[in-house]
């Protein structure tokens, strides 16, 4: 099974800072990590390869320093890494990003059996990119899956949605976006990291390699513009309650029940 995993290097969330004037996230001096749900996607790909055989290609559009995320993905178990990088790609919204990624995927020979993405990223949280790639490549898609079971030429996938579990049979090639519940990414052996950074190659494709025009990518290819960006004021307020231990426990239970966090009848969450 040939699998593509799309990943994005994102700023480590606790350290995110905003440039409200330029309306962008400040990336300088902030450590970049692989978007956590993309690690879940990678783990899913590694598990599928273990069962089905095949090859994992990891794909990312980003500035040259995204190489770090791709090398980490190689250490994680990917067989090949492609970095889509060009100054022309800068300023892309999710549509322009999806277009570049979809174009790169369409150029791969053979065409992959499966494309896996994280459901959303922690830096923009749109959840657009996976579905937009699927639309552009005319692939069946299921978003937010938490189980993947290969069956012949198709996949049986499940997802939790609004308190229901949906089960789908999807013919391949297909695109899935994955949720956190799918799996816990494994820890990377140190020797694999060493090799990923010293011996492995990163394939780099720029705009000309993808035969794209400047107006199709970056700001020019974007359908949306950020109008305003500001840091939201935290609305979380604490409540100080005093009383005996018994009354405090009862108070907390009532609060949790009111929030439907605790089930009133069973007493279980």
């Amino acid at each position, binding site marked *: 099974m040939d699998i593509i995993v799309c990943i994005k290097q994102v700023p480590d969330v606790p350290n995110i800072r905003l440039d409200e004037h330029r309306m962008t996230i400040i990336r300088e001096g902030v*450590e970049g*990590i692989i978007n956590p749900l993309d690690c879940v996607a990678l783990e899913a790909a590694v598990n599928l390869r273990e069962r089905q055989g095949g090859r994992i290609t990891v794909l990312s559009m980003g500035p040259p*320093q995204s*190489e*770090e995320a791709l*090398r*980490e993905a190689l*250490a994680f178990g990917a067989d090949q890494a492609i970095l889509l990088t060009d100054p022309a790609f800068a300023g892309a919204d999710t549509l322009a990003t999806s277009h570049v990624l979809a174009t790169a995927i369409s150029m791969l020979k053979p065409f992959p059996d499966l494309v896996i993405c994280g459901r959303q990223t922690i830096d923009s949280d749109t959840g657009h990119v996976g579905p937009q790639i699927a639309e552009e490549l005319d692939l069946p898609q299921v978003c937010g899956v938490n189980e993947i079971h290969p069956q012949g030429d198709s996949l049986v996938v499940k997802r939790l949605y609004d308190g229901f579990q949906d089960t789908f049979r999807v013919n391949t090639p297909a695109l899935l976006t994955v949720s956190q519940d799918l799996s816990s990414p494994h*820890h*990377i*052996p*140190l*020797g694999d*990291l*060493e*090799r990923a*950074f*010293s011996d492995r190659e990163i394939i780099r494709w720029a705009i000309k390699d993808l035969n794209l025009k400047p107006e199709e990518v970056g700001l020019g290819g974007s359908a949306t513009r950020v109008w305003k960006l500001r840091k939201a004021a935290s609305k979380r307020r604490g409540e100080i309650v005093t009383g005996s231990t018994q009354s405090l426990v009862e108070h907390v239970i009532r609060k949790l029940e009111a929030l439907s966090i605790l089930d009133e009848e069973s007493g279980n969450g």
Partner: protein
Amino acid sequence: MYLEPSMKQMVIRRTVRKFAEERLSPVAVEMDATGTFPSEIIREMAKLQYFGLEIPAHYGGAGLDAVSYAIVIEEISRSCAAVGLCICVHNSVSANPIYEFGTEGQRKTFLVPMAEGQAIGTFCLTEPNAGSDVSSLGTIAIRDGNGYVLNGNKVFVTNGGMSSVNLIFAVTNTTGKQKRYSVFIVESERKGLEKGPNEELMGMRGNPVCPIALNDCHVPVENRLGGEGQGLKIALSSLVDGRIGIASQALGIAQASLDVSLEYAKERYQFGKPLSEFGAIQNYLVNLVTRVEGARLLTYRSAYLKDQGLAHTKEAAMAKLYASEVAVDVTRVGLQIHGGYGYTKAYPIERYYRDAKACEIYEGTSEIQRLVIARSLGYG
């Protein structure tokens, strides 16, 4: 001059920190309380290649550079110093000397299982009457046919309680004015090697530190590491690199203390404001942060010099001396910032304080490090 870790080293730090926070931080308290080292941690870390950090891949290791090695030890020690100590000693003064001075046969027989984490290693130099003073070593190895017979007592053997491979330093000449030392790789199951009960330690309690006695222990000549009489050279060379490891360990403990102290100072309110807004506490914290950063630079620099193949005896001694003293200071002042709560086991700072103290003592006390540095200045 570029003083930042490389892309690879940053990812290694993140990877190790994630593992350590998920797997080691939760067991650190219990390891300290019970004085036990969970075997599943060894198995897990073995799979992730923590037992052959600088050993090349074809001997089963991870093949890391020395700066990456320092970062790994720092991050492990930040979560659990007792595990950091295990990894540090196993790698720097047990596996590395076998790689550096061992024959191909010794590498295959001993190093590969060590790098794969199947065999834990020790470094047995210290004796009841010989520690800093190596010339007082009393363990004797007498040539006997195609081997040696070892007799003597080793104490404070880090990893001793769970080791399979032990580097035993012994005197190999009984005549002549000048003692000649040799090193022997002695398997734990070898007849004549007996381990005593684990020590009740002040800190680093999760590590099974114990005495090892050698009573007419027959060791074949092929277990001698290096030539006869090369023991001192092997010991000193191993200890130079061991110091980078202990400096890294001290750095990890210091960073852990700093992290919890900075957090506590923000959370703890007195007189209507957080401790962090009091000038006295800010001064403490600023001094600690600055000193930890200084220790980090010294430590990484000594590792960098090793990577470049340059002399680093003085620099490793400086890093070990400074980082271990910083660790003791940071934990002491950090505990002071925590006040009464810091003196309880409800907070980790008291454990860090006890753990840090060991760094000033083992693999060359602070006094010995000062001696090494003084000699590099032409004194003594």
